[in-house]
């Protein structure tokens, strides 16, 4: 098969049209109106990503009641477990009102009271939420278009192009007609989301292709072992039950939440997932939820009820709920593995270790170091998903505006041609493995939570057998058409993410925050107050560790 080749130019290329990429595009045009900004999105910018399928809530800190340092102390001790970059977390909290004001200014519907103040729903002593309707990304795209941002939908990032260690642009392809694009850019911003392995329905847009492209380009990865988020879902409909961990019972009628939780916590923890596994293994399953009189906690129902006045999101929620209700005859639950690996390592300016390459949103949440020992949003911090993306976007735009754009790097056409040949190879093969066979193997490694969440050396070795087989087959994939070619491209990224997860998890010989190992059950501040950095060196996955500079931060063990 032969497809057209085209060369394009822009000042800044943004890969990914979810809330992170769109917020960056708007913000950089506000700061640098003459800059030529091009957004490529493999589906449709404004409808992609996760912000328009999630809870529709934004975390809110009342500046009269909560000082950034107060929330930082809570987060570092209970969620990040001393592994987070405290400078960045402080900055995130301090920018809360600015971020929400920006979204409102960009046309996002945020309810206000009769005095013009945001309607706030308190969720805890320090936290609160405000609503944002699920057309949030559509509104920000419209704003970006008004500011002159260019968009290319149905165009997938294939690879990043470098020139002597500096970004020179990217290769991309149309999933509709196969056109191969070589795009020269002075800076590239990855906003391609996290890795979710196509297991959870609403999380399925996160397929890690941007993470894989950054890895192949030599960018460092950090906290790859924290890409194992899971929460409880109903066994029949697979619908997630947010806060269901507060109401868990085993088949003998025992209230098992008390085995892992003594007081109310901010959100689900990996200990709830561990408890499900321990109960099931000891023959006390199935596990179910009980609500109502005599049972703790209303779960998420109060919050859900308050989301019903969202004009755009209401139909979406109603269809999902009424359809699930037809099959949910009971409240049996099991973990739904979600993933949320977000390891692209960035500094305080959101720049990766490849000069001129930036990464924002769920692509680099853990890689930024900000949250510490917890997977990407919600990351035990409900309402932080959308705002983390907006935060990273604003910080990235500010740093590019401050530093300016460098135009020294040039695209190497031989490098681009090698990318093209590698990309289209599955279409050229007469026979081979399907992308779905490879993805199924990755899912067998990642989804069982005793392999990926409550880990042990022997169970990780079992999982790695699947990954080894998936890696072997991923070099022999055959694609039937361009849709299938995209699946092959994503399958390759899933193999890499899973490999990184187990590679880094095997190295971290402790348990910390969300990260749980049965064979190393304790937090080890003496040896493991460190980040694990994973990097591609001449095709080999290598690692180093970097000490957490805890002595310069206010909250210490």
């Amino acid at each position, binding site marked *: 098969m032969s497809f057209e080749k085209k060369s394009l130019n822009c000042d800044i290329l943004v890969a990914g049209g979810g809330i992170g990429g769109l917020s960056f595009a708007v913000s950089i045009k506000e700061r640098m109106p003459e800059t030529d900004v091009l957004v490529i999105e493999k*589906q*449709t910018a*404004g*409808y*992609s*990503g996760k912000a328009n*399928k999630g809870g529709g809530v934004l975390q809110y800190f009342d500046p009269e009641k909560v000082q950034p340092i107060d929330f930082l102390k809570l987060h570092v001790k209970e969620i990040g477990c001393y592994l987070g970059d405290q400078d960045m977390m402080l900055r995130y909290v301090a920018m809360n009102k600015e971020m929400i004001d920006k979204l409102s200014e960009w046309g996002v519907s945020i309810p206000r009271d009769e005095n013009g103040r945001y309607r706030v729903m308190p969720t805890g002593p320090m936290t609160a939420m405000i609503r944002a309707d699920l057309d949030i990304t559509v509104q920000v795209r419209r704003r970006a278009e008004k500011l002159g941002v260019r968009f290319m*939908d149905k165009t997938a990032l294939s690879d990043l192009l470098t020139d002597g260690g500096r970004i020179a642009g990217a290769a991309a392809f149309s*999933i*509709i007609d196969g056109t191969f694009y070589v795009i020269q850019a002075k800076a590239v911003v990855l906003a391609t989301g996290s890795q979710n392995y*196509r*297991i959870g*329905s*609403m999380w*399925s*847009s996160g397929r890690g292709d941007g993470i894989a492209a950054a890895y192949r380009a030599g960018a460092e990865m950090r906290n790859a072992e924290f890409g194992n988020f899971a929460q409880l*879902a109903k*066994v*029949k*409909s*697979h619908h997630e039950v947010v806060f269901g961990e507060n109401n868990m019972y085993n088949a003998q009628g025992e209230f098992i939440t008390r085995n892992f939780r003594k007081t109310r916590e901010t959100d689900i923890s990996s200990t709830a997932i561990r408890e499900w596994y321990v109960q*099931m*293994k*000891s*023959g006390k*399953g199935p596990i179910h939820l009980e609500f109502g009189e005599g049972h703790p906690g209303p779960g998420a129902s109060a919050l859900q009820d308050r989301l019903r006045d969202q004009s755009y999101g209401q*139909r*979406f929620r109603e*269809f*999902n709920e009424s*359809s*699930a209700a037809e*099959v949910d005859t009971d409240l049996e639950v*099991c*973990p*739904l*593995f979600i993933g949320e690996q977000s390891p692209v390592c960035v500094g305080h300016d959101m720049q990766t270790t490849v000069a001129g390459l930036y990464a924002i949103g769920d692509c680099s949440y853990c890689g930024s170091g900000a949250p510490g020992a917890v997977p990407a949003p919600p990351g035990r911090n409900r309402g932080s998903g959308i705002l983390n993306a907006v935060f990273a976007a604003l910080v990235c735009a500010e740093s590019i505006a401050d530093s300016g754009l460098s135009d020294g790097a040039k695209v190497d056409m031989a490098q681009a041609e090698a990318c093209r040949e590698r990309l289209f190879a599955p279409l050229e093969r007469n026979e081979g493995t399907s992308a*779905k066979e490879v*993805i*199924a193997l990755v*899912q*067998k490694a990642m*989804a*069982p*939570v*005793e392999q990926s969440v409550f880990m042990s050396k022997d169970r990780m070795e079992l999982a790695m057998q699947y990954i080894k087989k998936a890696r072997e087959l991923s070099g022999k994939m055959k694609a039937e058409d361009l*849709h299938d070619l*995209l699946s092959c491209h994503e399958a390759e990224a899933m193999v890499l993410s899973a490999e990184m997860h187990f590679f880094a998890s095997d190295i971290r010989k402790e348990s910390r925050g969300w990260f749980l190992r049965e064979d190393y059950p304790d937090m080890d501040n003496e040896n493991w107050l460190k980040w694990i950095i994973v990097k591609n060196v001449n095709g080999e996955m290598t690692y180093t560790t970097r000490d957490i500079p805890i002595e310069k931060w206010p909250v210490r063990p």
Partner: protein
Amino acid sequence: MINTAHRIEFFPEKCVGCQLCYKACFVDVIRWDPEAKKPVFKYVSDCEHCFCCQAVCRKDAIRVIPDYSSEHLLQSFERYA
């Protein structure tokens, strides 16, 4: 999810060709036929039952019928007692 058996019912007589369902599908299940000005539900085995296409269609021309039994959460129940 992969290899799901969800079904999508489409009522072409109600469709006004606005393309919103095509745009809303974030997993490339729906393609667009520019001549007919109608969606083509081409890769239904990749459907995630998200209901986005149905929710954005103001003419009620689409109905998603999930088959939840075709989705697999892959928790290893068989390994447990």
